[in-house]
């Protein structure tokens, strides 16, 4: 065993010494491969674990917190929701179609192994700008991959997000989330127990897919042939669908003790983790594993990442029944090992022991690092900056068109039209609203689902950005009339060994934790993806938040878009409303001096109209956010709302335009007339008109929603807001179909033709992708 081989397994010298000490001898190559896999960041969380421990994970709604294949929250009537998000960034950078497809496959398995039927998938995607052909290729391939896989398995995509920024060129992010439903009593955990129980490999045969190239090269260079090179993982959604049905049937018939997906690090992680969770030993015979190619070594079999495979633990007498169920679904389940009482993790190949490791220690004695975390000077400086002297790319009026034409803000219809969003016939609101909504079969309640992260805000100020991601997700859920229940997170960052990156990671997590505590939305699990670096540097820090919420009654649901001319438009929340409102809210905190931020700090307006990413961003007032969520849910309950849409990227003007433009399949766009008396207090001598008006139109203060209501219910809505001490301001009304969207301030009057805005918004992405 040379140090070189050790290095190629991504283990450092200290880690290697720890292995030697644990075993009392030099590890075999197979053992080294096993350690390498289990002690990788992906499996062991060795850099992130201490930080993840700071997340709130408890709550009366929590059935299963972090540590299992997916988190589980309680719903009414004995139901529960299992959900989880996962990244597939690197494979997607190499092969966008298969990378994204297998990412969806993996997350589906995480959910159905819990005994939950997947009812929704979501995806959060990041690419470099679309003017580069490579980015277009990656974008198109990823979207097709996500779509083809989920469509075939038959799980609707109910939401997602796509963002384009230079920080992702060469390093796209592909995060997939899956939401499943189960009866709480049917929850199945991935814990091996029962000495003498059998381990079975279920599903596809094992090939040489995704075995780490570097570690492989060292083995026997001389006889390396093309065919022995590690291969891209290829997804087979048809087999996945069979696996899903077979698994759920096995669980329903109570034929299995435990189940786990063979995901990253395949057989190794699934077997070792199940054994460790159950506190038992296992013995595997790799020669019994069905393989796709001849002459596979135990090393390859243990580390293969072939897709659509599961590991089952079952009582021996159940094996024939299990095999019968699998045969019905045209799958095979083959015994490959057993649970033992000696606590050892043992691998045998043709009768020869090729690995023998103390099982618990293999998992528990992973080295844990807490790297140094310091913010870079550059990042700090960016916050103090303001846009330079270069003139805006558009005037205040033209800016809205420019923003709506920006792929990050524009309609993602080109994307979600490639995803089946209605299969399972439970979709109440598909993609294109604030959050996806689905009905829970045979009940009167629904689920709201969303994924969100504004990475620009995280890059500028990781703590505030982390808070903002959770706040936006919660706002999106609340706008539909639902109550946020909990989150799963996918933490995409660069190399944690760099102090400025680890700072981003730690601070963003602190922000997420604080927000989750404030909203009572515990973290039920997630995924950490570090080392997202390309030659040009680390990706923008992207802690994607996946959130689920409960819609207590289907009838409470609220659409995002204006519904009827003449309806009143009300701005809920925000200090602008506070400043404008004639009803000064009781007990609202006075503006804090110091790091309060400016409305345009980190905004889309500055980014796209001024070509400037920086400034001190608005802080998230968690208490005010929570109040807004409560008012939205209560207003929905009381039937006061005709529509609700949150203010996020692009501020009030974009939110208003989106509400007016209508949903992706609306046949009309409405006008809107809104008056913001905002800059009445114009500073004497303030020459720059933009300084006064842009914050009002495009500022990204948090905690706001644009809602519309029947004029007859306006008073009740405002009274409700007052009751909760939430600033609320009646700002105008919905105009006629095809009318103009007009915003009047004391400093100006801006007017856009709604149908034209709709056209811009819908065509921005297809135009760049060369489609009609």
């Amino acid at each position, binding site marked *: 065993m040379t140090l070189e081989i050790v290095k190629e397994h991504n283990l450092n010298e200290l880690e290697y010494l720890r292995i030697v000490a644990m075993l009392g001898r030099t590890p075999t190559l197979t053992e080294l491969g096993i350690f390498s896999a289990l002690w990788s960041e992906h499996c062991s969380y060795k850099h992130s674990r201490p930080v993840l421990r700071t997340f709130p994970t408890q709550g009366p709604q929590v059935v299963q917190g972090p540590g299992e294949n997916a988190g589980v929250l309680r719903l009414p009537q004995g139901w529960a929701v299992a959900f989880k998000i996962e990244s597939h960034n690197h494979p997607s950078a*190499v*092969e966008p179609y*298969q990378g994204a497809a297998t990412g969806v496959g993996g997350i589906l398995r995480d959910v159905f192994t819990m005994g939950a039927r997947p009812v929704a998938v979501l995806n959060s995607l990041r690419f470099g700008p679309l003017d580069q052909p490579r980015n277009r290729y990656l974008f198109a391939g990823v979207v097709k991959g996500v779509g083809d896989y989920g469509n075939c398995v038959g799980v609707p995509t109910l939401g997602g997000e796509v963002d384009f920024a230079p920080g992702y060129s060469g390093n796209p992010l592909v995060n997939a989330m899956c939401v499943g439903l189960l009866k709480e009593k049917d929850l199945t955990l991935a814990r091996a127990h029962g000495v003498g129980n059998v381990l079975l490999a279920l599903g*596809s045969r094992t*090939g*040489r*897919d995704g075995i780490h190239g570097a570690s492989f090269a060292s083995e026997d260079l001389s006889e390396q042939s*093309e*065919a022995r*090179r590690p*291969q*891209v993982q*290829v*997804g*087979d959604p*048809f*087999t996945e669908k069979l696996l899903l049905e077979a698994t759920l049937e096995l669980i329903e018939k109570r034929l299995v003790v435990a189940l786990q997906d063979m995901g990253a690090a395949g057989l190794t992680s699934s077997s070792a983790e199940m054994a460790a969770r159950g506190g038992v030993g296992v013995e595997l015979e790799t020669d019994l594993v069905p393989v*796709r*190619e001849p002459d596979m070594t135990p090393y390859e079999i243990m580390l293969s990442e*072939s*897709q659509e495979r599961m590991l089952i633990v079952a009582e021996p007498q159940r094996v024939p029944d299990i095999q019968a169920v699998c045969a019905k679904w045209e799958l095979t389940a083959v015994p490959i090992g057993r649970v033992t009482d000696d606590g050892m993790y043992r691998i045998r190949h043709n009768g020869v022991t090729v690995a023998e490791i103390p099982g618990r220690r293999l998992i528990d004695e992973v080295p844990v690092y807490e790297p140094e975390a310091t913010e870079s000077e550059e990042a700090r400086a960016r916050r103090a900056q303001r846009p330079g002297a270069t003139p805006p790319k558009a005037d205040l009026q033209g800016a809205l068109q420019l923003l709506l034409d920006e792929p990050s803000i524009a309609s993602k219809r080109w994307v979600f039209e490639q995803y089946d969003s209605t299969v399972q016939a439970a979709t109440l609101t598909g993609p294109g609203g604030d959050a996806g909504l689905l009905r829970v079969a045979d009940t009167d309640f629904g689920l709201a689902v969303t994924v969100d992260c504004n990475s620009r805000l995280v890059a500028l100020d990781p703590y505030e950005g982390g808070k903002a991601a959770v706040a936006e997700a919660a706002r999106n859920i609340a706008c539909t009339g639902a109550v946020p229940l909990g989150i799963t997170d996918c933490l995409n960052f660069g190399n944690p060994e760099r102090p400025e990156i680890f700072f981003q990671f730690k601070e963003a997590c602190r922000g997420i934790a604080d927000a989750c505590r404030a909203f009572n939305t515990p973290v039920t699990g997630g995924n950490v993806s570090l080392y997202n670096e390309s030659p040009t540097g680390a990706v923008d820090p992207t802690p994607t938040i996946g959130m689920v919420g409960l819609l207590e009654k289907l009838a409470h649901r609220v659409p995002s878009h204006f519904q009827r001319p003449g309806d009143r438009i009300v701005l809920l929340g925000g200090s602008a409303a506070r400043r404008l409102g004639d009803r000064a809210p009781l007990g609202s905190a006075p503006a804090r001096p110091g790091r309060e931020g400016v409305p345009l700090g980190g905004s889309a307006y500055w980014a796209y109209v001024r070509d400037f990413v920086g400034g001190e961003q608005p802080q998230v007032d968690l208490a005010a956010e929570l109040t807004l969520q409560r008012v939205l849910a209560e207003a929905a309950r009381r039937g006061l709302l005709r529509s609700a849409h949150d203010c996020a990227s692009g501020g009030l003007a974009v939110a208003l335009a989106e509400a007016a433009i209508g949903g992706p399949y609306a046949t009309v766009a409405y006008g809107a007339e809104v008056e913001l008396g905002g800059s009445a207090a114009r500073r004497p001598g303030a020459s720059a008109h933009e300084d006064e008006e842009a914050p009002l139109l495009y500022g990204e203060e948090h905690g706001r929603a644009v809602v519309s209501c029947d004029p007859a219910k306006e008073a009740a809505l405002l009274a409700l807001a007052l009751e909760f001490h939430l600033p609320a301001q009646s700002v105008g009304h919905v105009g006629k179909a095809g009318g103009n969207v007009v915003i009047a301030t004391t400093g100006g009057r801006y007017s856009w033709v709604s149908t034209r805005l709709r056209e811009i918004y819908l065509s921005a992405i297809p135009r760049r992708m060369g489609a009609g």
Partner: protein
Amino acid sequence: VRIVPRAGLLDPQGQAVEHALAALGFREASNVRIGKAIELAIEASSADEALTRTRAMCDKLLANPVTEDYLVEVEER
């Protein structure tokens, strides 16, 4: 141009077809792999040139180097 999935790569489509053929009684078929057949007309001064150009097209666009191998055949008209 014939484009086929790389050797060793899983070809779920080929697998499914192989099973279906067997079920239809064509048990003599094995190793089914499904790829793309692309026919195109090329203006070129020689067969050699056509070959070179078509190879370039494959490298650039037609085939995915990560997952596929290709084979070009030229036929003069």
